[in-house]
């Protein structure tokens, strides 16, 4: 796993506030977990207002990614191992 920005990601949502991104995840995905800021997804410590919702959709992980000048994006990355790791944390 490398830097998120160099991974093969798909942007699910852009130009939304962080709170709108969280609501989007909870509305659009049946499977998600709430984590605290600083939680590590792939190689990144997630930024966000707690609780931060991370969705799982099969082998896909959907999570918020915030940059100071560009706001929050919801990214979707396929990674079987990371999805399994996160799924295990729900139990």
């Amino acid at each position: 796993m490398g830097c998120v920005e160099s991974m093969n990601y798909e942007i699910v949502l852009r130009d939304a506030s962080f709170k709108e991104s969280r609501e989007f995840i909870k509305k659009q995905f049946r499977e998600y977990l709430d984590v605290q800021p600083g939680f590590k997804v792939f190689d990144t410590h997630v930024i966000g207002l707690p609780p931060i919702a991370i969705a799982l959709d099969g082998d896909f992980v959907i999570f918020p990614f915030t940059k100071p000048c560009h706001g929050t994006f919801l990214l979707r990355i396929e990674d079987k191992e990371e999805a399994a790791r996160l799924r295990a944390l729900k139990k």
Partner: protein
Amino acid sequence: MNNEAVPISRDWSNVTGEPTTQPATALLVLGCPQVPVQTSIALYLINRLKKAGIVPTVAGNKAANTLLVVADPDRHYLGEIMDLDRAVVMITEKKRDFDRCFVFIHNDAGVTYAGTMSAISKAKVYTIIYGEHYEDLVKQLDFPCTTIAAKSVHNPLPLKKALDEVAPWAA
């Protein structure tokens, strides 16, 4: 001649025997530098903190940090500067923390970073909010922090006034 044995101290900075204390520290979390007042207020705040004996560290993205470095080439004001993502990692992994944390906010991402700092750091968080939509941003704050806010975009004086009223360097 006094032949009385004198204990040898290797800590020459503490010749009085008084307990040493670490200086207070502050982290300035910069936002996107697209609103001009940020760089000006950051340098002003750094100056006030240093005069109060507080050691400031700046964390921003490359553009925000470079604006400061170019404005202060001889480092009269600036001390340590680090990448914002690196600061988040270091605080999250408990390798570093600060006594005060000032988060510059003029957009939703700024609020998000402030909420993150409030959650991962033990620092007292100050949110410095400015720009056209500063009132909407203030309403989004739902975590413990001291808010310093003014409708400053190009003119830093309203924000400087709000900062002086709170005087976080004296708290």
